[in-house]
């Protein structure tokens, strides 16, 4: 019944709109065609301009109110580079956005149809077109050079002393493994995966014996290069740490990696954001199935001393789980 009423109401609205439209058309037919065109062009140019003003206000106001949310503090070294590129791009595209959109709305209003006016026959101007080919090209090349330089810095080889960790995606959780005291991750083989060895680590290899596998929050030291070795067991996932501006797909069969240097501890970030409950979060950013939206892990960035202390308290997974069982 409720459904029927809603449907009826909607249909009624459409019927009214359609009849108003028909009536306006009938009335307008009485007028001279050119006069009619001039009148309707003025009305429509007005509404178009008004929508431009409205949207300009909407965009201006929301940029002002949302600013603190969308230009957040990057918590990694390369995050700052990305932020600086964003600011440059924001300024350049922002200026072009305002000018071109303004001209569009302004021309639409100013040059609307009038029956006694003629348009200007102006089919081409090579000089003008040359200018607006060259200026964008030069601008884009500058942006490309800036971007490429940073791109290769982001994807340079990790420093040899980088802390080695491994993040492996599966439906719908992350496995995290630390290199342990030797800072080296032992090899894996997917055929070895079973309930007590969910990552398929080869325990026969010595470097895997001290590896730490932990389902709790991920703990990492600040101001230290960290190399994330990324993998996936079943489908493609993506390691996504928005605060660190870090994203890299986790592809089954194709190991990927990303190194970064966090610059702000969790404690410090809580002060900056004035939010005592703030945590860095790890999310999945490649559609991996129905639980894609729910692969959260907390990352704790701690001082180097705290990290060393935490590391010394961890047990080797091999010794506590594998040896103990057998």
């Amino acid at each position, binding site marked *: 019944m409720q459904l029927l009423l809603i449907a009826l109401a909607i249909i009624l609205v459409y019927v009214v709109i359609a009849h108003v439209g028909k009536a306006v058309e009938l009335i307008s037919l009485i007028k001279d065609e050119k006069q009619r065109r001039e009148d309707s062009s003025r009305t429509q140019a007005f509404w178009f301009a008004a929508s431009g003003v409205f949207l300009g206000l909407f965009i201006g106001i929301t940029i002002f109110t949302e600013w603190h949310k*969308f*230009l957040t503090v990057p918590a990694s070294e390369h995050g700052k580079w990305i932020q600086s590129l964003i600011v440059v791009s924001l300024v350049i595209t922002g200026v072009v956005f305002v000018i071109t959109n303004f001209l569009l709305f302004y021309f639409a209003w100013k040059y609307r149809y009038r029956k006694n006016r003629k348009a200007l026959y102006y089919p081409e101007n090579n000089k003008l077109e040359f200018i607006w080919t060259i200026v964008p090209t030069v601008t884009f090349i500058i942006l490309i050079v800036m971007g490429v330089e940073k791109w290769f810095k982001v994807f340079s080889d990790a420093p040899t002393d980088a802390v080695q960790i491994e993040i492996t995606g599966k439906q719908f959780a992350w496995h995290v493994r630390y290199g342990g005291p030797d800072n080296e991750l032992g090899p894996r083989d997917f055929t070895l995966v079973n309930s007590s060895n969910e990552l398929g680590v080869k325990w026969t290899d010595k470097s895997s014996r001290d590896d730490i596998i932990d389902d709790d929050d991920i703990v990492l030291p600040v101001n230290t290069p960290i190399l994330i070795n990324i993998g996936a067991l079943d489908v493609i996932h993506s390691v996504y740490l928005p605060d660190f501006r870090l994203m*890299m797909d986790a592809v089954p*069969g194709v190991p990927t990696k990303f190194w970064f240097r966090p610059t702000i501890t969790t404690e410090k970030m809580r002060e900056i954001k004035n939010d005592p409950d703030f945590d860095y979060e790890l999310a999945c950013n490649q559609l991996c199935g129905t639980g894609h939206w729910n692969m959260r892990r907390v990352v704790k960035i701690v001082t180097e001393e705290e990290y060393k202390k935490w590391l010394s308290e961890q047990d080797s997974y091999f010794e506590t789980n594998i040896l103990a069982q057998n």
Partner: protein
Amino acid sequence: MTTDTIPGQFSMAHTAHHHKQTFLTKYIFSTDHKTIAKQFLLTGMFWAMVGGLFSVLFRIQLAWPDATFPLLETLFGHWFEGGRLSTEAYYGLVTMHGTIMVFFVLTAGMSGTYSNFLIPLQIGARDMASPMVNAISYWLFFIASVVMLASLFLPTGMASAGWTIYPPLSVLPQASPGSGMGMSLWLCSMVFFIASQIMGGLNYISTVLNLRTKGMTMFRMPLTVWALFFTAIIGLLSFPVLFASVVLLIFDRGLHTSFYLSDLYVGGQALSYSGGNPILFQHLFWFLGHPEVYIAVMPAMGIVSEILSVNSRKPVFGYHMMVYSLLGIVVMSILVWAHHMFVSGMNPFLGSVFMLFSMLIAVPSSIKVFNWLTTIWRGNIQMTPAALFCLGFVSMFISGGLTGIWMGNATIDIQIHDTYFIIAHFHLVMGVAAFFGMFAGVYHWFPKFYGRFMNETLGYVHFIITFVGAYLIFWPMHYLGMSGVPRRYYSFHEFRAFAEYDNMNILITTASIVVFFTQFIFVINFFWSIYKGRKMKTMNPWEANSLEWTTPINVNDIHGNWPGDLPTVYRWSYDFSKFEDEERDFIPQTEPLSQREIELGNNH
């Protein structure tokens, strides 16, 4: 039937007294390009409504993730079990929204409608180079549509691996229920669809190259024909690659080959696939997937150039540059695909190369924007609904195009890849913009389609709500994306960082519901006007120059378009307001050069 298939060059005398057509041969199994165009348009409109409805359904989930809507359960059954969209249905709808909009609406609905309708009419041909192949092209699309529609009702669920169907998710039913029968039907539908597109594309290209009427040199063609011609070329170069990638995916699914798969442990067991690479699929997919966005937007560019020029009563500014910039887009569009894969794990060196072209492809696009602005500058702009949608197109194309300069910058992409920023970007630049081009085309050529006008008042209401609404929907998504909110999330409440935009999400969803219901005004206007619209009484109501307006008012009854000889062309189609002292401000293409013009020296 056979006489119907006579291609362009024959005189009308041969086709004038063909046998009487039945309803079936005239409206259903017709080989007339005009009828086929309308079939594509109507099928495209159907799919646009379905695709739009799906987006509203999953937007409701995103705005009110914890609320229940018993009404929706009544309407949509098990998708809304307990009044709340299930995760399976959510990902299914997201996948289908993308598939439907990109392929069925903006490719088939767009090129199918306008290439079929405008190419022969604007170059002076009686029909396509091969009308029969053209008809088959539509019917293959129809089969693809039926298969896809059927897949929506499967008890195991529709395909739900995203419209990009990345393996292994799309291969393994144990990883996603939609990857069972749902994905099989999706792939089957796509095979028919690609065949349809290739047949259509071959036809469009050969028609433009072979069937131009006397005097219609390439550089006298309207920009619509250029755009549709280039679009067909892109499609012909890239769709076969999608076909290959789809076939290999079918092999992986059915024959247990390992093109894309390796090292998998799913559902409690290690699978025997070995040696494949999921990133290979991404390369093959985006080799079509990126050109595809130009397939969607280039016809709109052509339509906008044409309609803005006619309604501004001014020649399109920089005609040659408009053609060359389209050509530049064609060439570069097939060199940018891997910008969808900057963080996919491919070699970072590739990222820098693809970044170069992805940024440079913005050059022809910006040339076009500046040329459109100059086209309306000092014009005499008649604000018809078609003209308004063109102005809206330019605005959307600017706003969405500029963020392309962000996305194309690989370094920035690390932050905003696969967030709501990209949703905002591509919806504005190739979603809404292409739709606006389509709407503009329908309003403008409706008199040619059906011999009647659409109601302008309804057109104005349709435009203004859609225009403002589209900005309200997609603009705030930039903010969400920059602050890190990822796309394809069923709910944002699991993460503190993503949960702070509840109000914004409600605004977006509310706007999308309003915009969705506004589209019915267009649909009502469309069907109402077919039967009850104001009749077209003159051949050339918009006072345009191109050849379609030299056909008779009842052109839809004539298979062959011109009752007598084909028109001869003497000039380009943009001679508007050429001489200030002349009363008439347009000179049709069929008019020979005047003495005055010969003395002045004619450029076009």
